């Protein structure tokens, strides 16, 4: 399973990215990340979970997950992201870099 993540916006407007190959993680980390994806019902989320009136300077996220031939991209932001998705966003933010 592959995760591709992009964080954009924020006051500084710096775009950061992360690519995570879940199969290459340690068994414990892979289990943790897989659970975050399951808890978020990622493959059943709407493609766009974004605010109708975005609050200035908040972060936007684009997450693509590929798993066993299926692929899904979800675009969301700090204002609208469901609580169930936040642990995954937090984890990916920690992995992200320029």
């Amino acid at each position: 399973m592959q995760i591709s993540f992009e964080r954009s916006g924020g006051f500084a407007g710096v775009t950061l990215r992360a690519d995570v190959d879940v199969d290459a993680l340690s068994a414990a980390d892979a289990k943790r990340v897989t659970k975050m994806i399951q808890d978020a019902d990622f493959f059943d989320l709407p493609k766009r979970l974004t605010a109708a009136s975005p609050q200035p300077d908040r972060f936007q996220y684009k997450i693509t997950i590929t798993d066993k031939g299926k692929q899904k991209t979800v675009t969301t932001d700090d204002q609208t992201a469901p609580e169930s998705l936040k642990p995954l966003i937090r984890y990916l933010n920690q992995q992200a870099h320029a």
Partner: protein
Amino acid sequence: MCRSKASIRQAVRPYCFIIPPYMLKEVAKREEGAMREHALESLAVSAQLRGQRAVLGLLPQAMTAFAVGGKSRNVFDAHHTEDLPGKLVRREGDKATRDKAVNEAYTYAGVTYDFYKKIFNRNSVDARGMRLDSTVHYDVNFDNAFWNGNQMVYGDGDGVIFQRFTKCLDVIGHELTHGVTQFEAGLVYRGQPGALNESFSDVFGSMIKQWRLKQKADKADWVIGEGLFTPQINGVGIRSMSNPGTAYDDPKLGKDPQPADMKHYFKGSADNYGVHINSGIPNRAFYLTAVELGGYSWDKAGKIWYVALRDRIRPSTNFAQAAQILIAVARDLYGVNSAAEKAVTKAWKAVGVL
């Protein structure tokens, strides 16, 4: 449309969905007391029905500040949670605390208030003395500051790339100007109107800093967020208004992505279609105007931009429309063929918008 306060008072309540929101907003903005309350109520209800959240930004005011007040600041501490506003730690008139972030949020919100009052005779972000609320220590290692429609929110930074976001006066001026834009032009936060929204925040944030330092346009650094990066980062600040795209270049951050003209316009979908990226173009138009006119940026260039933001820019105004509006305001304020009109025109041509 409405001839007397009494007629509006009667009309607003029963027919709240007939009166268009822009009129209700005007009533809410310009009137006081019961009429304002009714207008705000109607706005809230119709906003909920139409799923528009922007106008809800008007509401807290309705609950806290019917009377027009003066400078009033509250600073809250989120204690590293995401709960807003958090615990009230400093009110207007309270003496300084031991917490730097609290004191900076308080002091710089005050400088921003004073700038708008003294230079443009504007009483707070809503022009009606709205209390300025700030929350510091939001979340853990939070690399951001934002305006949530009602208040400012500041993170402490991660300490590796960013320091605390209250450190810079222009960052605080930037956030509060998002409030001014919300109550005036209402620029939609996406694409070109969003980049203009961002640019107005940088323009006023920069002017506020120059005003505090008593700097003339040709002496200012025109950098947004100077000192916000840790010393380990290779960069002068977050954005350069004079040379967009040159503020930083660092392995941890990449290179400053801002274009300086329309030839390098960012067309991607990231950052709400580039609101913090393409803002480099209108930012540079302001810088060029201010330097061309000389003296203090807020005297002429700032006044033109302020009057446009307050009276003429609309929610969906794009770059080309903004340029025409700013030229028209320069003409109205300083005369046909005035140095001001010529400087604004030249600036928007230089960035490739005209």
